[in-house]
């Protein structure tokens, strides 16, 4: 069985990002920076209606606009569009302005639907206008039960009921979705902003009927992806078709407006929870009815995968008597896609809120209540660690008892992430040159998480070199295949693979050079003995060096202004484990990002659909609010290194508990619960009973 080195020099230490200098100096080239000769811009025309039958699309006026080289429809007419912003047509031209003019010149004969539904509550109504003709908007409820719930509630000494809701969250990576695509007689080259170069290649080949060998996808640098950038996407296929039609490369990057409407999102949840505990604080009965929307993707799958609105419940906890009923509601809005830890942040928010509410009802400290009921020894350890760091013992007070107008409060919540393990299909290769330079090539992509750094760290460790000596190449389907970056699996995929490649390479180098140990200071001498031909070694993922199932807990300290309703997060302590830590810096960076994203989910973010017009009201950063640096609290990252578990990914679990922890801290501060995310000043004031009732005139 392979094993990780004990007493490592680089693994588990702090190595700065190997590509940091390129990024901060602007030398890093992203998909939208590619300058191919004859490059055209591409743009998409979107439906201005929430639902419509598109009878005819006349592209001729667009083609008459000077500079326009191609115009296509997304499919043959007639067709149906089901949400505001759905793609109808696309154009390519020599300037953005030409494209904008062309989009407006396209004339559409359409029959907008007279009725539509954009709100989950309305979609529950059996008579609501059908998003998919012939199918009810609300899927049939699916129920799962263990124990005897009805009887169990009778045995509880405290029972709470709550309605915890979370909004649809929009994907807003720094870099929008998009590609620069060149389609020539030799095939397609696509520079894609993607989490999965292989899946984009296969997607393009499949939809455009080309051999996979004729499609090459390159992602040198990538500005973030959180689950919605795996496929070629409608925009990727359109860019390729435009390129073919125009006979020139096309750059089609989405605008923020496009991005808000059509590339997927995190489904909403409306969780009605009833939960009870025995007198000693043991969770005993749990009941949840949940619905949410995945937009036009009705979803309905379990476990919060890519498309469905279902969430895991009762989440971290084992309750002997539990009944969970869930369904998805289709509405005329952009559909869901995987979003950083699908299903988990809403599950954590709902369940952890209920946990605090029940602790209050029981008269128990919420921390003790968790220590009693959390089945995971790792998380219990993390709860104690985090409590220490935030000063729970000294600072915790019963809800609402902080004096003054600005009240402070503490809260915590936990995470579980079932994935995070490695993909057995990962492959890689090393090329060792006679001059001692070495190149590692893996067909994965670094989506900003530090994959290149991880590869350099592991290679340096095995070969006795420094990370700077390793040239890392990823993000090209010409390299040995690797998995998409999802499920927090990349680190646990590449680390064992690089370990295998490097150990094999070392073996061969030692054989060829006749040196017993080619590492470290012997490296150059050994390489020289290769003569004129470089050594290329192929390797693959190995079992036994990684595992899955990270835990994690977070604590939040907030201050709430009870007159303006403004919530200030003062501090977050984030305690996370991910097995063997590869690089502390890139790991802490993932956790910082996770906390900030979770904070946006807790306090600011929400897709607002308008039921009168059917449009999204906030497809911009002005009213789709995201945390800015001044909103971000002090974040204390506490890392729990568990080398015995091997490598586990962290990207997703780090964002799971933040919203629950903040929500609990707010409830602790003001003594009443805001049970609906985002926790806006308006909702805080309403919870405090300060908002006068609305009287219809």
């Amino acid at each position, binding site marked *: 069985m392979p094993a990780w080195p004990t007493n490592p020099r680089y693994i588990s230490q702090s190595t700065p990002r190997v590509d940091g200098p390129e990024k901060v100096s602007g030398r890093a080239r992203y998909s939208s920076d590619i300058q191919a000769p004859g490059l055209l811009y591409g743009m998409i025309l979107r439906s201005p209606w929430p639902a419509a039958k598109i009878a005819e699309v006349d592209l001729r006026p667009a083609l008459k606009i000077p500079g326009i080289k191609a115009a296509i429809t997304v499919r043959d007419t007639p067709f149906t569009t089901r949400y505001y912003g759905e793609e109808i047509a696309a154009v390519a031209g020599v300037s953005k302005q030409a494209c904008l003019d062309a989009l407006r010149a396209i004339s559409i004969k359409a029959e907008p639907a007279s009725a539509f539904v954009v709100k989950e509550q309305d979609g529950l109504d059996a008579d609501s206008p059908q998003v998919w003709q012939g199918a009810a908007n609300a899927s049939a409820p699916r129920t799962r039960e263990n124990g005897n719930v009805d009887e169990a509630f009778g045995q509880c000494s405290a029972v709470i009921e709550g309605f915890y809701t979370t909004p649809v969250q929009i994907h807003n990576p720094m870099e929008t979705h998009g590609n620069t695509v060149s389609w020539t007689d030799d095939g397609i080259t696509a520079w894609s902003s993607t989490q999965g170069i292989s899946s984009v290649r296969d997607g393009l080949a499949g939809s455009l009927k080309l051999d996979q060998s004729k499609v090459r996808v390159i992602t040198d640098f990538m500005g973030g992806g959180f689950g919605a950038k795996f496929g070629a996407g409608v925009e990727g296929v359109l860019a390729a078709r435009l390129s073919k039609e125009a006979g020139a490369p096309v750059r089609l990057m989405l605008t923020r407006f496009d991005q808000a409407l059509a590339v997927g999102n995190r489904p909403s949840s409306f969780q009605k929870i009833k939960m009870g505990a025995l007198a000693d604080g043991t969770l005993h009965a749990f009941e949840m009815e949940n619905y949410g929307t995945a937009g036009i993707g009705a979803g309905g799958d379990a476990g919060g995968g890519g498309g469905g609105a279902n969430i895991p419940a009762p989440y971290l906890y084992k309750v002997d008597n539990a009944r969970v009923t869930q369904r998805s509601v289709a509405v005329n809005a952009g559909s869901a896609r995987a979003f950083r830890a699908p299903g988990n942040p809403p599950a954590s928010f709902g369940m952890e809120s209920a946990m605090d509410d029940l602790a209050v009802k029981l008269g128990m400290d919420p921390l003790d209540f968790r220590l009693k009921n959390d089945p995971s020894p790792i998380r219990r350890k993390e709860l104690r660690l985090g409590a220490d760091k935030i000063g729970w013992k000294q600072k915790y007070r019963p809800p609402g008892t902080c004096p003054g107008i600005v009240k402070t409060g503490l809260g915590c919540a936990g995470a579980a992430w079932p994935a995070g393990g490695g993909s057995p299909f990962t492959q890689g290769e090393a090329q060792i040159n006679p001059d001692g330079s070495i190149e590692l090539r893996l067909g994965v992509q670094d989506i900003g998480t530090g994959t290149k750094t991880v590869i350099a760290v592991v290679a340096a460790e095995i070969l006795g070199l420094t990370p700077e000596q390793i040239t890392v190449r990823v993000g090209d389907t010409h390299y040995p295949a690797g998995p998409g970056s999802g499920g927090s699996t990349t680190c646990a995929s590449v680390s064992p693979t690089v370990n295998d490649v490097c150990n094999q390479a070392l073996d061969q180098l030692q054989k060829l050079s006749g040196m017993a140990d080619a590492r470290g200071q012997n490296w150059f001498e050994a390489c020289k003995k290769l003569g004129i031909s470089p050594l290329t070694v192929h390797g693959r993922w190995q079992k036994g060096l990684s595992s899955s199932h990270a835990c994690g807990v977070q604590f939040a300290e907030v201050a709430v202004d009870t007159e303006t309703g403004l919530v200030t997060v003062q501090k977050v302590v984030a305690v996370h484990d991910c097995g063997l830590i590869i690089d502390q810096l890139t790991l802490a960076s993932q956790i910082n990002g996770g906390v900030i994203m979770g904070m946006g989910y807790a306090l600011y973010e929400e897709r607002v659909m308008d039921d009168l017009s059917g449009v999204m009201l906030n497809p911009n950063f002005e009213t789709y609010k995201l945390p*800015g640096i001044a909103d971000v609290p002090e974040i204390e990252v506490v890392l729990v290194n568990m080398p015995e578990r091997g490598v586990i990914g962290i990207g997703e679990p780090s964002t799971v508990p933040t919203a629950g922890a903040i929500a609990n801290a707010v409830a602790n501060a003001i003594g009443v619960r805001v049970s609906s995310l985002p926790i806006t000043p308006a909702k805080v004031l309403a919870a405090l009973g300060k908002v006068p009732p609305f009287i219809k005139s």
Partner: protein
Amino acid sequence: MKAFEYATALSPSSARDLIADNGAYIAGGNDLLGRLKEYLDAPARLVNIKAIPGLDTIQYGDDCWTIGSLVTIATLEKDEKIRSALPGLHQAAAEIASPQIRNVATVGGNLAQHSRCWYYRQRDVQCLKKNGDLCYARNSDNRYHSLFSGNDCISPVVSSLGATFAALDATAVVLSGGQELRWSMAEFYADAWKMHLAHNSLKPGDLILRVEIPLSRPRSAYLQASDKHVFDWALVSCAAAADYVDGKLVSPRVALGSISPVPHQMDKANQFLEGKPLDSTTVAHAADLLLANARPLEHNAYKVPMAHALICRTLLKLKG
């Protein structure tokens, strides 16, 4: 946006000539370019007014300071004399948008900016203010809208400077049809109170030259409440100014932004405060007077307690 001509004016009168029938002045462009990009406006010509001499300076007179319409918000924020003599104006400027925006945004553009109602700014919604036949906000999502309005549109004035200038009793000097008109802030926004199509009282071609601020109120303050800590619009903003002599208010003025199409003022409240000490009962009563006739809608009633708190806090800040 649609293609347009571009011209630079070198004097106020040439600006007026260049703008012709279907042009628009461009100063910092923060508001105008956003409108063009969303196809809310399609002027045939943009007339750059930034090169007109003299409009970008502050003049510190003995009892009145004059702020040129091209003075940037960053300049207002950083000017040391303003910080000490007109602290409310400094605070209002410092809260606007982000440093990058403040660096280019001008005083004139801030006052003349158009509605931020999310239906108005939505390219595919034709509401009343865009010559459609329905106020969507009134019937649907009005969380950011007005507590007061004199017409069917409930889009609030969002200019933080508008409210602050109102509290300071400032005058906007506007070149209109070859004449200099002198408008109080109430007059500057009067049309927006009366008419759903109006954002302010400016007619096409009217050019804001400067704002004159009397120095009779050495105490001033500004506060806003938003969803976020910085770089976010005010849900409610409040400005107050007065003199405070022997523990009593002299010529107090309070004005609120984001709750009415005009900076919201109540003579009754100002009169009540006259000669009163700054204590919690007094300021609370003033807040009651200011909000007495508020007409909350389905989603914006939270603005009532929020405004109440801000009025009290802003007034109490005048104590120093």
